[in-house]
Protein backbone atom coordinates (compact mmCIF):
# COMPACT_ATOMS: atom_id res chain seq x y z
CA UNK A 1 0.00 0.00 0.00
CA UNK A 2 1.22 3.47 -0.80
CA UNK A 3 2.73 5.20 2.18
CA UNK A 4 2.52 2.08 4.34
CA UNK A 5 5.64 0.39 5.68
CA UNK A 6 6.87 -2.57 3.64
CA UNK A 7 4.90 -5.72 4.20
CA UNK A 8 6.68 -7.55 6.97
CA UNK A 9 4.24 -10.11 8.21
CA UNK A 10 0.88 -11.70 7.68
CA UNK A 11 -1.58 -11.55 10.53
CA UNK A 12 -3.60 -14.17 12.34
CA UNK A 13 -7.29 -14.57 11.54
CA UNK A 14 -8.09 -13.32 15.05
CA UNK A 15 -6.34 -10.01 14.39
CA UNK A 16 -7.91 -9.64 10.95
CA UNK A 17 -11.32 -10.45 12.45
CA UNK A 18 -10.91 -7.80 15.11
CA UNK A 19 -9.96 -5.19 12.52
CA UNK A 20 -12.94 -6.00 10.28
CA UNK A 21 -15.30 -5.90 13.28
CA UNK A 22 -14.07 -2.40 14.14
CA UNK A 23 -15.08 -1.19 10.71
CA UNK A 24 -18.33 -3.17 10.51
CA UNK A 25 -19.55 -2.33 14.02
CA UNK A 26 -18.81 1.36 13.51
CA UNK A 27 -20.99 1.39 10.39
CA UNK A 28 -23.70 -0.68 12.06
CA UNK A 29 -24.07 1.42 15.20
CA UNK A 30 -24.03 4.66 13.22
CA UNK A 31 -26.73 3.25 10.91
CA UNK A 32 -28.87 2.50 13.97
CA UNK A 33 -28.33 6.00 15.39
CA UNK A 34 -29.19 7.67 12.08
CA UNK A 35 -32.26 5.49 11.76
CA UNK A 36 -33.58 7.08 14.95
CA UNK A 37 -34.10 10.28 12.95
CA UNK A 38 -36.58 8.71 10.55
CA UNK A 39 -39.92 10.41 11.12
CA UNK A 40 -38.32 13.06 13.35
CA UNK A 41 -36.03 15.09 11.08
CA UNK A 42 -36.65 18.84 10.69
CA UNK A 43 -37.98 18.49 7.12
CA UNK A 44 -39.22 15.70 4.89
CA UNK A 45 -36.16 16.10 2.67
CA UNK A 46 -33.77 15.71 5.63
CA UNK A 47 -35.77 12.75 6.86
CA UNK A 48 -35.06 10.98 3.58
CA UNK A 49 -31.49 12.26 3.51
CA UNK A 50 -30.65 10.87 6.95
CA UNK A 51 -32.52 7.65 6.14
CA UNK A 52 -30.40 7.28 2.99
CA UNK A 53 -27.26 7.78 5.07
CA UNK A 54 -28.44 5.13 7.51
CA UNK A 55 -29.02 2.66 4.69
CA UNK A 56 -25.56 3.32 3.23
CA UNK A 57 -23.97 2.55 6.59
CA UNK A 58 -26.16 -0.50 7.03
CA UNK A 59 -25.01 -1.71 3.61
CA UNK A 60 -21.37 -1.28 4.67
CA UNK A 61 -22.08 -3.11 7.92
CA UNK A 62 -23.67 -6.05 6.09
CA UNK A 63 -20.67 -6.52 3.80
CA UNK A 64 -18.16 -6.14 6.63
CA UNK A 65 -19.97 -8.34 9.16
CA UNK A 66 -20.50 -11.04 6.52
CA UNK A 67 -16.76 -10.91 5.88
CA UNK A 68 -16.12 -11.06 9.63
CA UNK A 69 -18.31 -14.16 9.85
CA UNK A 70 -16.31 -15.85 7.08
CA UNK A 71 -12.98 -14.97 8.74
CA UNK A 72 -14.18 -16.23 12.09
CA UNK A 73 -15.21 -19.56 10.55
CA UNK A 74 -17.78 -20.39 13.23
CA UNK A 75 -20.71 -20.25 10.85
CA UNK A 76 -22.06 -16.97 12.24
CA UNK A 77 -23.98 -14.82 9.78
CA UNK A 78 -24.06 -11.02 9.58
CA UNK A 79 -27.35 -11.16 11.52
CA UNK A 80 -25.87 -13.36 14.26
CA UNK A 81 -23.03 -10.90 14.70
CA UNK A 82 -25.31 -7.85 14.67
CA UNK A 83 -28.10 -9.11 16.89
CA UNK A 84 -26.63 -11.73 19.17
CA UNK A 85 -23.44 -10.17 20.52
CA UNK A 86 -23.32 -8.25 23.79
CA UNK A 87 -21.92 -4.75 24.29
CA UNK A 88 -18.41 -5.80 25.32
CA UNK A 89 -18.02 -7.73 22.06
CA UNK A 90 -18.75 -4.68 19.91
CA UNK A 91 -15.71 -2.96 18.42
CA UNK A 92 -17.25 0.29 17.13
CA UNK A 93 -15.75 3.69 17.86
CA UNK A 94 -17.27 5.29 20.94
CA UNK A 95 -18.02 8.35 18.78
CA UNK A 96 -20.78 6.68 16.76
CA UNK A 97 -22.76 5.42 19.76
CA UNK A 98 -23.10 8.97 21.14
CA UNK A 99 -26.70 10.23 21.16
CA UNK A 100 -28.08 12.14 18.19
CA UNK A 101 -28.66 15.21 20.37
CA UNK A 102 -29.99 18.08 18.29
CA UNK A 103 -29.62 18.18 14.51
CA UNK A 104 -26.33 20.06 14.89
CA UNK A 105 -24.82 17.36 17.09
CA UNK A 106 -25.86 14.68 14.61
CA UNK A 107 -24.24 16.65 11.78
CA UNK A 108 -20.98 17.18 13.69
CA UNK A 109 -20.75 13.48 14.59
CA UNK A 110 -21.51 12.67 10.96
CA UNK A 111 -18.89 15.04 9.59
CA UNK A 112 -16.19 13.66 11.90
CA UNK A 113 -16.94 10.14 10.65
CA UNK A 114 -17.32 11.16 7.01
CA UNK A 115 -13.95 12.93 7.01
CA UNK A 116 -12.48 9.79 8.56
CA UNK A 117 -14.13 7.40 6.12
CA UNK A 118 -13.14 9.36 3.02
CA UNK A 119 -9.48 9.13 4.09
CA UNK A 120 -9.84 5.54 5.33
CA UNK A 121 -11.63 4.05 2.32
CA UNK A 122 -9.39 5.92 -0.08
CA UNK A 123 -6.37 4.19 1.47
CA UNK A 124 -8.13 0.91 2.16
CA UNK A 125 -9.13 0.43 -1.49
CA UNK A 126 -5.44 -0.33 -2.05
CA UNK A 127 -5.36 -2.85 0.82
CA UNK A 128 -3.57 -6.15 0.33
CA UNK A 129 -6.76 -7.74 1.68
CA UNK A 130 -8.77 -8.13 -1.54
CA UNK A 131 -12.13 -8.41 0.29
CA UNK A 132 -11.56 -5.21 2.23
CA UNK A 133 -10.23 -3.42 -0.85
CA UNK A 134 -13.42 -4.24 -2.78
CA UNK A 135 -15.71 -3.12 0.05
CA UNK A 136 -13.70 0.08 0.50
CA UNK A 137 -13.83 0.94 -3.20
CA UNK A 138 -17.63 0.71 -3.12
CA UNK A 139 -17.99 2.55 0.19
CA UNK A 140 -15.65 5.36 -0.85
CA UNK A 141 -18.23 6.77 -3.27
CA UNK A 142 -20.85 6.74 -0.53
CA UNK A 143 -18.46 8.39 1.92
CA UNK A 144 -17.66 11.15 -0.55
CA UNK A 145 -21.35 12.00 -0.87
CA UNK A 146 -21.82 11.83 2.91
CA UNK A 147 -18.90 14.21 3.30
CA UNK A 148 -20.51 16.64 0.87
CA UNK A 149 -23.83 16.42 2.74
CA UNK A 150 -22.45 16.85 6.26
CA UNK A 151 -19.83 19.49 5.43
CA UNK A 152 -22.42 21.64 3.64
CA UNK A 153 -24.67 21.39 6.68
CA UNK A 154 -21.79 22.25 8.98
CA UNK A 155 -21.17 25.43 6.97
CA UNK A 156 -24.83 26.42 7.12
CA UNK A 157 -25.13 25.76 10.85
CA UNK A 158 -21.78 27.18 11.91
CA UNK A 159 -22.08 30.25 9.74
CA UNK A 160 -25.85 30.52 10.22
CA UNK A 161 -27.72 32.16 13.05
CA UNK A 162 -26.33 32.97 16.47
CA UNK A 163 -28.21 30.01 17.94
CA UNK A 164 -27.16 27.51 15.27
CA UNK A 165 -23.53 28.63 15.69
CA UNK A 166 -23.67 28.28 19.47
CA UNK A 167 -25.26 24.82 19.37
CA UNK A 168 -22.94 23.51 16.68
CA UNK A 169 -19.84 24.79 18.48
CA UNK A 170 -21.07 23.07 21.64
CA UNK A 171 -21.40 19.81 19.69
CA UNK A 172 -17.89 20.18 18.25
CA UNK A 173 -16.50 20.88 21.73
CA UNK A 174 -18.26 17.82 23.17
CA UNK A 175 -17.64 15.31 20.39
CA UNK A 176 -13.99 16.15 19.75
CA UNK A 177 -13.03 14.14 22.82
CA UNK A 178 -14.12 10.94 21.06
CA UNK A 179 -11.87 11.45 18.05
CA UNK A 180 -8.39 10.50 19.39
CA UNK A 181 -9.57 6.88 19.36
CA UNK A 182 -9.81 7.00 15.57
CA UNK A 183 -6.09 7.56 15.20
CA UNK A 184 -4.41 6.00 18.25
CA UNK A 185 -2.76 2.88 16.88
CA UNK A 186 -2.92 -0.17 19.12
CA UNK A 187 -1.67 -3.72 18.52
CA UNK A 188 -4.45 -4.59 16.06
CA UNK A 189 -3.82 -1.42 14.05
CA UNK A 190 -0.05 -1.90 14.03
CA UNK A 191 -0.19 -5.55 12.99
CA UNK A 192 -2.74 -5.04 10.20
CA UNK A 193 -0.83 -1.99 8.99
CA UNK A 194 2.46 -3.91 8.93
CA UNK A 195 0.74 -6.62 6.88
CA UNK A 196 -0.48 -4.08 4.34
CA UNK A 197 -4.12 -4.61 5.31
CA UNK A 198 -4.92 -1.32 7.02
CA UNK A 199 -3.57 2.19 6.36
CA UNK A 200 -1.07 4.02 8.50
CA UNK A 201 -3.08 5.86 11.15
CA UNK A 202 -0.60 8.72 11.42
CA UNK A 203 -1.17 9.59 7.76
CA UNK A 204 -4.93 9.18 8.22
CA UNK A 205 -4.81 11.47 11.24
CA UNK A 206 -2.96 14.18 9.32
CA UNK A 207 -5.47 14.05 6.45
CA UNK A 208 -8.43 14.13 8.86
CA UNK A 209 -7.14 17.04 10.94
CA UNK A 210 -6.38 19.07 7.84
CA UNK A 211 -9.83 18.42 6.38
CA UNK A 212 -11.68 19.09 9.65
CA UNK A 213 -9.68 22.23 10.42
CA UNK A 214 -10.44 23.61 6.95
CA UNK A 215 -14.21 23.01 7.12
CA UNK A 216 -14.53 24.22 10.73
CA UNK A 217 -12.68 27.41 9.85
CA UNK A 218 -14.93 28.01 6.86
CA UNK A 219 -17.93 27.38 9.11
CA UNK A 220 -16.58 30.02 11.56
CA UNK A 221 -16.25 27.31 14.23
CA UNK A 222 -13.20 26.86 16.39
CA UNK A 223 -11.26 23.63 16.69
CA UNK A 224 -11.00 22.61 20.34
CA UNK A 225 -8.18 20.52 21.67
CA UNK A 226 -9.22 16.89 21.97
CA UNK A 227 -9.24 15.85 25.61
CA UNK A 228 -8.11 12.34 26.40
CA UNK A 229 -9.88 9.86 28.58
CA UNK A 230 -12.99 8.82 26.66
CA UNK A 231 -13.68 5.07 26.58
CA UNK A 232 -12.02 3.28 23.65
CA UNK A 233 -14.83 1.45 21.87
CA UNK A 234 -12.60 -0.30 19.37
CA UNK A 235 -11.24 -2.36 22.25
CA UNK A 236 -14.70 -3.12 23.60
CA UNK A 237 -14.67 -0.38 26.24
CA UNK A 238 -17.83 1.63 25.57
CA UNK A 239 -19.77 4.57 26.95
CA UNK A 240 -23.07 3.97 28.72
CA UNK A 241 -24.99 4.64 25.51
CA UNK A 242 -24.11 1.50 23.57
CA UNK A 243 -26.28 -0.68 25.81
CA UNK A 244 -29.36 1.38 25.01
CA UNK A 245 -28.62 1.29 21.29
CA UNK A 246 -28.26 -2.49 21.39
CA UNK A 247 -31.38 -2.95 23.51
CA UNK A 248 -33.47 -1.31 20.83
CA UNK A 249 -31.62 -2.81 17.88
CA UNK A 250 -31.50 -6.37 19.18
CA UNK A 251 -34.83 -6.60 20.95
CA UNK A 252 -36.72 -8.37 18.17
CA UNK A 253 -34.18 -11.13 17.58
CA UNK A 254 -33.62 -11.65 21.29
CA UNK A 255 -37.35 -11.86 22.06
CA UNK A 256 -38.27 -13.89 18.99
CA UNK A 257 -35.12 -15.80 17.99
CA UNK A 258 -34.92 -16.54 14.29
CA UNK A 259 -37.97 -14.40 13.47
CA UNK A 260 -37.97 -13.24 9.86
CA UNK A 261 -40.36 -11.75 7.34
Amino acid at each position, binding site marked *: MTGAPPVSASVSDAVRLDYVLRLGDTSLILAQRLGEWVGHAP*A*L*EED*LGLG*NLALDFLGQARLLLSLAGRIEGRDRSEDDLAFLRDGGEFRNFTLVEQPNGDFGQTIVRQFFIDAYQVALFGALSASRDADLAAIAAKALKEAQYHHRFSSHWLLRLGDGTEESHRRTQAAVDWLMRFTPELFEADDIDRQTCAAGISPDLAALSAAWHQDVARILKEATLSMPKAERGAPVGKRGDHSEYLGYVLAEMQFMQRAYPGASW
Partner: protein
Amino acid sequence: MSATQWPLYEVFIRSKGGLDHKHVGSVHATDANMAIEHARDVYTRRMEGVSIWVVPSASIVASDPQEAGSLFEPARDKVYRHPTFYEIPEEVKNL
Protein backbone atom coordinates in the same frame (compact mmCIF):
# COMPACT_ATOMS: atom_id res chain seq x y z
CA MET B 1 -43.02 32.46 1.24
CA SER B 2 -43.70 32.09 4.94
CA ALA B 3 -40.91 32.62 7.43
CA THR B 4 -40.93 28.97 8.52
CA GLN B 5 -40.72 27.42 5.04
CA TRP B 6 -37.53 27.06 3.03
CA PRO B 7 -37.74 28.30 -0.58
CA LEU B 8 -39.08 25.87 -3.15
CA TYR B 9 -37.00 24.43 -6.01
CA GLU B 10 -38.32 22.54 -9.04
CA VAL B 11 -36.42 19.32 -9.78
CA PHE B 12 -35.58 17.98 -13.24
CA ILE B 13 -33.98 14.56 -13.70
CA ARG B 14 -32.26 13.11 -16.76
CA SER B 15 -32.90 9.38 -16.62
CA LYS B 16 -30.02 8.47 -18.92
CA GLY B 17 -27.51 10.05 -21.24
CA GLY B 18 -29.05 11.53 -24.39
CA LEU B 19 -32.54 11.94 -22.94
CA ASP B 20 -34.11 15.20 -21.79
CA HIS B 21 -34.30 16.36 -18.21
CA LYS B 22 -37.89 15.80 -17.10
CA HIS B 23 -39.71 17.60 -14.33
CA VAL B 24 -40.23 15.15 -11.46
CA GLY B 25 -41.35 17.34 -8.54
CA SER B 26 -40.04 19.88 -6.09
CA VAL B 27 -38.06 20.18 -2.86
CA HIS B 28 -37.61 22.80 -0.18
CA ALA B 29 -34.05 24.00 0.41
CA THR B 30 -32.19 27.02 1.74
CA ASP B 31 -29.68 27.16 -1.12
CA ALA B 32 -28.84 25.57 -4.45
CA ASN B 33 -26.41 23.01 -2.98
CA MET B 34 -29.00 21.82 -0.52
CA ALA B 35 -31.58 21.65 -3.30
CA ILE B 36 -29.33 19.32 -5.31
CA GLU B 37 -28.72 17.15 -2.24
CA HIS B 38 -32.40 17.02 -1.41
CA ALA B 39 -33.32 16.23 -5.00
CA ARG B 40 -30.76 13.43 -4.99
CA ASP B 41 -32.06 12.06 -1.70
CA VAL B 42 -35.75 12.33 -2.58
CA TYR B 43 -35.88 11.55 -6.30
CA THR B 44 -32.90 9.33 -7.22
CA ARG B 45 -33.00 6.67 -4.52
CA ARG B 46 -33.89 3.95 -7.03
CA MET B 47 -31.40 4.86 -9.76
CA GLU B 48 -33.85 7.16 -11.55
CA GLY B 49 -31.23 9.50 -12.88
CA VAL B 50 -27.77 10.42 -14.09
CA SER B 51 -28.14 14.19 -13.86
CA ILE B 52 -30.15 16.66 -11.80
CA TRP B 53 -31.21 20.24 -12.49
CA VAL B 54 -32.82 22.38 -9.81
CA VAL B 55 -34.45 25.72 -10.51
CA PRO B 56 -35.86 28.14 -7.96
CA SER B 57 -39.63 27.82 -8.40
CA ALA B 58 -39.88 31.61 -8.18
CA SER B 59 -37.78 31.87 -11.35
CA ILE B 60 -40.30 29.96 -13.43
CA VAL B 61 -42.70 32.11 -15.42
CA ALA B 62 -45.90 30.21 -16.05
CA SER B 63 -48.77 30.85 -18.41
CA ASP B 64 -52.03 31.88 -16.81
CA PRO B 65 -54.65 29.09 -16.83
CA GLN B 66 -57.29 31.81 -17.29
CA GLU B 67 -55.74 32.59 -20.66
CA ALA B 68 -55.67 28.97 -21.81
CA GLY B 69 -58.50 29.69 -24.23
CA SER B 70 -56.81 32.48 -26.09
CA LEU B 71 -53.38 30.83 -25.95
CA PHE B 72 -54.21 27.31 -27.07
CA GLU B 73 -57.63 27.07 -28.68
CA PRO B 74 -56.72 28.92 -31.88
CA ALA B 75 -54.46 25.98 -32.76
CA ARG B 76 -57.30 23.51 -32.55
CA ASP B 77 -58.73 23.96 -36.07
CA LYS B 78 -55.39 24.20 -37.86
CA VAL B 79 -54.78 20.56 -38.62
CA TYR B 80 -52.72 21.56 -41.67
CA ARG B 81 -49.91 22.41 -39.30
CA HIS B 82 -49.37 18.70 -38.78
CA PRO B 83 -47.11 17.33 -41.50
CA THR B 84 -49.60 14.61 -42.45
CA PHE B 85 -50.56 15.75 -45.93
CA TYR B 86 -47.51 14.50 -47.76
CA GLU B 87 -47.46 11.50 -50.07
CA ILE B 88 -44.82 9.10 -48.74
CA PRO B 89 -42.94 7.19 -51.46
CA GLU B 90 -43.23 3.41 -51.13
CA GLU B 91 -39.45 3.06 -50.79
CA VAL B 92 -39.27 5.09 -47.60
CA LYS B 93 -39.49 2.85 -44.58
CA ASN B 94 -39.62 3.71 -40.93
CA LEU B 95 -41.10 7.14 -41.26
